[in-house]
């Protein structure tokens, strides 16, 4: 079979499809978006579910529901999305699965497109489920292909952990023979999915009992490979794609020291012990937080020296690359020419003609008399309004936080407080917060900057489309304080006036600022033009 050129994300999707996946659930989030988009692009409607979910929690629960019904399901998200889905995630580990369930999480060390660089392996350890961490696109495929079997063998969800670099890097991938999809099949035990205390205690016991088996799987896994070498003054442990950066530093990839390449968790303790006993000291190289290293050191330490992120031998933050490994390997860095001093930073910016820009111009003018520090914002393209020339925003924390933080600040006496949130972020996590504000008629103004898409991740369909006014009314926002504006230069004066009125109003108001994303509008027009 000819090799496919796939990104790590796409390789996960291809592997899952070939393993007989019946449905994939996700909310878009860089760097995980392309997993689901790959499946959507194949147009398997009616055979494999692939529509977007409202958020990661609803996605996780739907995947668990599909697993309950005996079919293989995948749920995908970025690292911070797992926070949103944490409740079903932790509890799915307790219920266990019926059909195989795989949770693909893409972490973003270096925060290329995120607000933190949390390491999902800790979450998996917290839930006590296995993790597969590919070091190549081929492994991403092979792991997704095999993960459902692993999940069904031990009745536990399995995590595939990617990081940005592999998620968004392409390489050749060889496929395995496609497997048939599962038939509908009820769970073996009728109480497996009922987490009432008496039953949950049994399920939790089962999860603990299966840990030894999972460690045995790790011990025997072909993904945890040992490469021997003669010089045992050092032994190296790598996590995931860190192995590639290590190999890159040696001619013909011949690493002079023994290496244990760890790509499956729980940690293969026996193999780690073997390496420790064989070598005089250890170096631990892993992408993300120092999970392996911290575990090895423990609180009491080890007799032999361990170098890694915790002792400063490797950088504690940011993603790895071949160059940051050089000092700990005793290699001197190579470098080309210096970057000339005239080269300037070029941070991302709102597109020319973006509707959010007109919202910020109007908002800045409407807020002028109140002073700075009152605009709470959220996660999306519009967060770029925090940068010049707008400097319009004062917070960006997590999905939906703009509304609830504005409410909390107003509760504290910061009146008026304003929230700026996107349409898709609003239906992801803003609606429940708005309900809180409705209950107390909080003196805040919520601007939903509605560009009719999930823009930052590439223009996916927004659940909010054509529903925002009815959602706000349904939640109980007073209809006379739901105002619509069209963020265009020619309406600037009117928009400022409407904003001023509602910001001055002493209760809850919602401004729907509606204009299509300039990117999706351009794409739509181009498509319409090429249509015969």
């Amino acid at each position, binding site marked *: 079979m000819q090799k496919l050129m796939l990104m790590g994300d796409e390789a996960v999707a291809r592997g899952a499809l070939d393993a007989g996946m019946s449905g994939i659930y996700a909310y878009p989030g860089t760097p995980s978006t392309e997993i689901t988009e790959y499946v959507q692009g194949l147009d398997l409607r009616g055979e494999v579910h692939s529509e977007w979910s409202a958020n990661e929690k609803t996605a996780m629960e739907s995947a668990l529901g599909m697993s309950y019904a005996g079919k293989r399901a995948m749920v995908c998200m970025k690292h911070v999305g797992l926070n949103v889905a944490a409740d079903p995630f932790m509890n799915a580990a307790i219920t266990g699965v019926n059909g195989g369930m795989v949770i693909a999480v893409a972490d973003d060390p270096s925060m290329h497109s995120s607000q933190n660089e949390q390491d999902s392996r800790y979450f998996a350890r917290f839930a006590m489920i296995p993790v597969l961490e590919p070091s190549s696109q081929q492994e991403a495929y092979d792991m997704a292909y095999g993960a459902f079997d692993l999940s069904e063998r031990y009745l536990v969800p399995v995590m595939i952990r990617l990081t940005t670099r592999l998620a968004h890097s392409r390489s050749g991938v060889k496929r395995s023979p496609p497997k048939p999809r599962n038939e509908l099949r009820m769970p073996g035990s009728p109480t497996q999915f009922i987490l009432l205390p008496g039953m949950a205690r049994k399920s939790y016991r089962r999860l603990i009992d299966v840990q030894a088996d999972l460690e045995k799987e790790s011990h025997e896994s072909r993904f945890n490979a040992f490469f021997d070498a003669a010089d045992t003054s050092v032994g190296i442990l790598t996590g995931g794609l860190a192995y590639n950066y290590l190999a*890159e530093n040696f001619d013909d990839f011949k690493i002079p020291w023994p290496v244990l390449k760890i790509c499956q968790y729980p940690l293969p303790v026996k193999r780690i012990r073997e390496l420790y006993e064989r070598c005089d000291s250890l170096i631990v190289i892993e992408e993300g937080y120092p999970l392996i290293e911290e575990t090895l050191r423990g609180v009491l330490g080890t007799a032999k020296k361990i170098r890694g992120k915790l002792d400063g031998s490797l950088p504690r933050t940011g993603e790895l690359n071949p160059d940051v490994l050089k000092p700990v390997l005793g290699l001197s860095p190579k470098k*080309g020419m210096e970057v000339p001093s005239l080269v300037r930073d070029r941070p991302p910016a709102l597109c020319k003609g973006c509707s959010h820009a007109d919202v910020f111009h109007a908002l800045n003018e409407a807020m002028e008399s109140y002073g700075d520090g009152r605009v709470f914002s959220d996660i999306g393209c519009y967060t770029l309004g925090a940068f010049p020339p707008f400097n319009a925003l004062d917070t960006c924390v997590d999905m939906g936080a703009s509304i609830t933080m504005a409410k909390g600040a107003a509760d504290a006496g910061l009146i008026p407080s304003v929230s700026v949130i996107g349409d898709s972020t609003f239906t992801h996590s803003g609606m429940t917060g708005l309900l809180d504000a409705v209950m107390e008629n909080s003196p805040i103004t919520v601007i939903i900057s509605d560009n009719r898409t999930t823009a930052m991740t590439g223009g996916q369909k927004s659940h909010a489309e054509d529903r925002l006014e009815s959602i706000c009314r349904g939640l109980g926002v007073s209809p006379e304080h739901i105002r619509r504006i069209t963020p265009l230069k020619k309406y600037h004066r009117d928009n400022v006036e409407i904003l001023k009125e509602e910001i001055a109003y002493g209760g809850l108001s919602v401004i729907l600022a509606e204009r299509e994303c300039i990117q999706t509008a351009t794409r739509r027009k181009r498509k319409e033009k090429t249509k015969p």
Partner: protein
Amino acid sequence: MKCDIIIAGVGGQGILSIAASIGMAALGNDLEIKQAEVHGMSQRGGAVQSNMRISSGSIASDLIPLGEADLIISVEPMESLRYLPWLSAGGWLITNTNPFINIPDYPDLEALKEQIDAVPRHVALDADAIASSLGSARVSNMVVLGAATPYIGIPYGSFKQGIRKIFSRKGEEIIAMNLAALRKGKEMAESL
């Protein structure tokens, strides 16, 4: 054979089409490829790059180490300089000279030209002007790729086939335009 390339530009300028075309050309020659790209926030008018590695042997890292790139291909002059620390001692810089100015402190164009000229091995051409003269400013990225083709170590015909495949769904007219841009870029580079 081994060729490590950094493709540079500003989000939205079409560097991923360049990467895809090279990738397709390499695939046609049974070469190994790893190609890392930037998605997400930076695509909104920020600095973007793609690390493209091609080899007849296996490839370890998705990222090119400092000082080891054989080639920088840039669709924007200032962006071409951002990745100089990755360029190897014998490496080539191929760049468009037409600036994309979306920041208030963009450097002086003369000073920028001097810095590009200071790179020992470089090809600088106004790809936008060339593309416009061909009838479509949108193919300037393929002009830059054309100028880089003599330095990649893959037969020129493979690039033509690669572009045909990449743009196959867009119709003959668009394929022809991209191929014309590729050829013009190659001719310009060879005549410099």
